[in-house]
């Protein structure tokens, strides 16, 4: 086992001067073309080799947990949804579990199946997005455009089912807000068939491509022991050979019925090395797994209610009386999400709300991954920071039977009108406006 270094104090600049007088300090970030979000990496390099790394997050801190304690619980779902644009259903799914446990709210079976279906569709789109980013970081932009093109159908499907490409607003305490009617099953099945037919292509493009293999094999290694002691989660842990998956380990929703198994590269007949290549393998395997889970859900999903408390006013009244604490966990595409909540009677807002996202746990494993790597490998090793692409191109409206699409021009018109509205209001209130 490689020694896990945890003493940045010891490796302070003075000591580094003594131990490695030829080291150069290379800062990357907070804003850098190789990164999609603000974070600062400081590398100490000797020649091309990274000797030590220090990582400073905190540039994206928004204080969401504080904001959450100023809102009522129904508003909190939509705030939780905005923690991450890519895992935008994972946080609400964990939150509703926590509140349901604290307040003792039951969830009908059909609602649990719908939650699973949306969660798994999200996993497909998130893994495809990641695959595109990984290809881009390797300088393989043709593959990036191909993967993001084939990611579109799953977003269209989510839009069709929920009304939104991201931020689906589906979970509510006690169930879900929108049913998947049987008329939509064929559309879902078609999309799943489409993705099944693409699996061979993905294996060819990603796993059998000599240049991708050369760039990712034995790069950014995280050993099994390191993944265990540093509490890695999600595909990062599984690529290191740990069979760790909340869906398998901890029963919630209908996952016990679906017999989900944590997948490692061994399931593809490969030896586990814990490198970037293995992380691609695990994510591709999980896309197939998600397809299977959704197919099984469509077969087994029972008829019935989709929520146990249909009226929001009644729900808020019930939640206001609730007292207690609860934990909700969900396996997001990138790993474990956990929400802890404490409710007090006669208070609409939660007293304590603690959120943990997967990257929080996968922060420590970054340190051993970077050690002894080359500078050119930094982007691909760091690529577990997914970018948040907001789909501003259009809005899809599903209102009753009617389906309409608002195109970019329309959005632009709306945006211009809003600017005009805001400007005129500002002029009315501004001191220079009053004079005239």
């Amino acid at each position: 086992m490689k020694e896990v270094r945890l003493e940045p104090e010891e490796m302070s600049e003075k000591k580094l001067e003594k131990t490695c007088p030829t080291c150069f300090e290379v800062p990357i970030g907070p804003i850098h073309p190789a990164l999609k979000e603000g974070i600062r990496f400081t590398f100490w390099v000797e020649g091309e080799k990274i000797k030590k790394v220090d990582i400073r997050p905190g540039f994206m801190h928004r204080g969401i947990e504080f904001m959450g304690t100023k809102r009522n619980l129904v508003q909190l779902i939509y705030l939780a949804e905005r923690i991450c644009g890519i895992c935008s259903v994972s946080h609400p799914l964990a939150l509703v579990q926590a509140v349901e446990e604290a307040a003792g709210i039951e969830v009908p079976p059909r609602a649990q199946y719908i939650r699973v279906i949306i969660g798994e569709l999200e996993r497909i789109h998130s893994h495809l997005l990641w695959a595109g980013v990984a290809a881009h970081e390797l300088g393989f932009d043709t593959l990036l455009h191909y993967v993001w093109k084939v990611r579109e159908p799953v977003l269209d499907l989510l839009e069709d089912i929920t009304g939104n490409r991201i931020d689906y607003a589906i979970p509510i305490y006690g169930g879900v807000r929108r049913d998947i009617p049987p008329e939509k099953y064929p559309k879902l099945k078609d999309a799943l068939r489409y993705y099944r037919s693409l699996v061979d292509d993905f294996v060819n493009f990603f796993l059998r491509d000599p240049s991708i293999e050369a760039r990712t094999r034995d790069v950014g290694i995280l050993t099994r022991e390191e993944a265990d002691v540093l509490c890695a989660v999600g595909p990062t842990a599984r690529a290191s050979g740990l069979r760790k998956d909340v869906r398998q380990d901890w029963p919630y929703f209908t996952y016990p019925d679906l017999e989900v198994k944590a997948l490692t590269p061994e399931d593809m007949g490969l030896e586990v090395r814990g490198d970037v290549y293995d992380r691609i393998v695990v994510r591709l395997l999980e896309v197939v797994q998600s397809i299977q889970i959704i197919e099984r859900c469509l077969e087994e999903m029972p008829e019935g209610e989709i929520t146990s408390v249909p009226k929001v006013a009644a729900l808020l009244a019930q939640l206001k009386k609730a007292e207690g604490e609860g934990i909700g966990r969900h396996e997001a595409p990138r790993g474990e999400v956990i929400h802890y909540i404490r409710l007090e009677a006669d208070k609409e807002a939660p007293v304590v709300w603690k959120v943990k996202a997967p990257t929080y746990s996968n922060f420590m494993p970054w340190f051993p991954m970077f050690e002894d790597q080359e500078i050119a490998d930094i982007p691909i090793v760091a690529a577990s920071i997914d970018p948040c692409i907001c789909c501003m191109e259009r809005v899809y409206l599903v209102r009753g039977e009617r389906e309409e699409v608002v195109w970019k021009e329309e959005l632009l018109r709306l945006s211009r009108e809003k600017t005009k509205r805001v400007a005129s209001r500002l002029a009315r209130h501004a001191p220079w406006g009053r004079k005239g």
Partner: protein
Amino acid sequence: MRAQEVLEALKEKLGDKLRSPELKVEEIGHRRIRERGFLWAEIEREDLLEAVRALKELGPLHISIISGADVGEKIELIYHFAVGYGTPDGEVMVNLRLTVPKDDPVVPSICSVLPGALTTEREKIEFLGVEFSGIPDARKIFLPDDLEAHPWRKDEPELSQYVRYTVAWEAKKDERGEARA
């Protein structure tokens, strides 16, 4: 692993040090019913490391998060562990609660047993003002280096000024028409 087994093993190792343990077992699933276990217990800070070692002997140990709150005279920390990943339906959530007085907020760091806890311990230092003895790295992680306030503490005048400002700013949104526009 069953929740009952975890509780018995912990009781055997820690004895009275594990205070007011509470076991909550729920049934999950529709076609195949599975048990899901939560264990809640209180512990003194002196016994924390021993408890974590005992948990680690029980099976693969994962720390999800340490959550915390300012509860008047004291600070409360809850360690959310998951014991026994890797086996289907075999994980048990163990939640250890400990309180420390505000004038002596020192807790032993568990990084020597579970290095993965470093991120969440660093977060608690800056957000709640607790200290972890023996922590390998006590620098700030999410907050600016020059911020001396602890955002989750309710007794800091400097911070409450920030909070008042933010809340007032949020409330004025309606007047400015931002919320509705």
